[in-house]
């Protein structure tokens, strides 16, 4: 039997930084819609006279798991780029769907797998592989009043060479959920989602200040490659510009798609600011080091 549509589960078009986004949960159950509303309900409404740039629509899949558990398909602007997932894993899939679309079709900006934070219009780019601790770090910086530009997908204008806000819910995993919950006792978190490829994850809603400033781009003033390590001494090491350039290529999601424009945008970024490799042992230490670097620029 087909499930009834629930029009009240459509948040409408929301402005998420540069993009207008519709996450349409009218075809699935209320539990997912409530989580999406919790995370995205305070994003400003986008212009409703134009179609949204990105439409993610979770919908029940006909196929079921053994014992009748239901699977959810994710339609992204008409495509089904992913295999269906159990209903409880739909929220991460919505986030992945948004990332997938942006990485695939955004050709006017250079995208990095990086966190980015700003203060007083000056931004710090924090590129890192999965597990480097960039989400935990950016959430902790947000707790200290920094504007969250991005937690894992930073956007550099290839023309204006500025970092454009893309404040999405911050994806936290395992112990870092509790670490950030202690630092931000009043913050809004999604339910914990267990059994994902990354273990247990939860999403943190960006701070009201980060959402208020989501239309304000910032000038990058430093690139810091952070890596959390519980052992060993903390190390802050300046990187040569060529080293940073080559590492940033590895952290870009669309460098090879936008070709010369990406090369020149990256050269502009590398030219304009200092670059560091940063191994940190504690969040307090990382926050104070990054704050000091920012203050000196």
């Amino acid at each position, binding site marked *: 039997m087909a499930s009834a549509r629930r029009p009240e589960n459509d948040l409408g078009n929301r402005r998420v930084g540069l993009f207008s986004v519709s996450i349409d949960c009218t075809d699935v159950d209320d539990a997912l819609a409530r989580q999406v509303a919790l995370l995205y309900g305070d994003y400003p409404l986008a212009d409703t006279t134009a179609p949204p740039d990105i439409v993610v629509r979770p919908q029940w899949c006909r196929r079921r798991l053994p014992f009748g558990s239901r699977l959810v398909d994710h339609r992204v602007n008409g495509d089904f780029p992913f295999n269906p997932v159990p209903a409880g894993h739909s929220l991460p899939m919505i986030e992945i769907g948004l990332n997938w679309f942006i990485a695939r079709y955004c050709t006017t900006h250079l995208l990095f797998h990086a966190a980015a934070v700003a203060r007083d219009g000056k931004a710090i780019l924090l590129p890192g592989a999965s597990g480097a601790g960039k989400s935990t770090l950016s959430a902790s910086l947000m707790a200290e009043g920094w504007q969250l530009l991005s937690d894992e997908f930073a956007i550099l204008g290839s023309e204006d060479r500025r970092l454009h806000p893309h404040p999405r819910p911050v994806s936290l995993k395992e112990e870092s959920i509790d670490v950030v919950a202690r630092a931000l006792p009043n913050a809004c978190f999604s339910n914990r989602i267990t059994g994902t490829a990354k273990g247990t994850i939860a999403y943190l809603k960006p701070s009201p200040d980060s959402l208020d400033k989501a239309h304000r781009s910032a000038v990058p003033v430093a690139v810091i490659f952070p890596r959390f390590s519980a052992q060993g001494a903390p190390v802050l090491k300046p990187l*040569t*510009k*060529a*080293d940073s*350039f*080559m590492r940033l*290529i590895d952290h870009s999601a669309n460098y*090879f798609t936008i*070709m*010369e424009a990406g*090369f*020149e945008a990256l*050269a502009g970024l*590398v*030219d304009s600011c200092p670059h560091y490799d940063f191994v940190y042992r504690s969040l307090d230490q990382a926050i104070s080091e990054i704050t000091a670097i920012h203050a000196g620029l």
Partner: protein
Amino acid sequence: MGNDETKFFNRPDHWRICGGFVVRMHCWDGDYVVYNPFSGQTHRLDIVSGRLLQWLNTGPKTFGTLCRDVETFLELDDQTLTKATVGRILESLSDAGLVEAQGDFDGRTS
């Protein structure tokens, strides 16, 4: 004459950027990064390779001219070593698809 010497004395005499294009490159503290428009790859080059590519960016050059330029740049007085160095660099730039030898084009060289 050793094998290495045979290799560079038999080397084609004229070189240019592939297709006669100008490649985009940037240099910081002697480290070069260069964009290859044909492959879409970005290459990192040391200072000598970068300089040589920069000279070729101004137009085709003969092997002899490149050797003289490298000799002056590095203040070398050993021609055999210079030729071997330039030969190795051209080979690696050619492998990267950035430069090509005479025979692949009809260009005027300096």
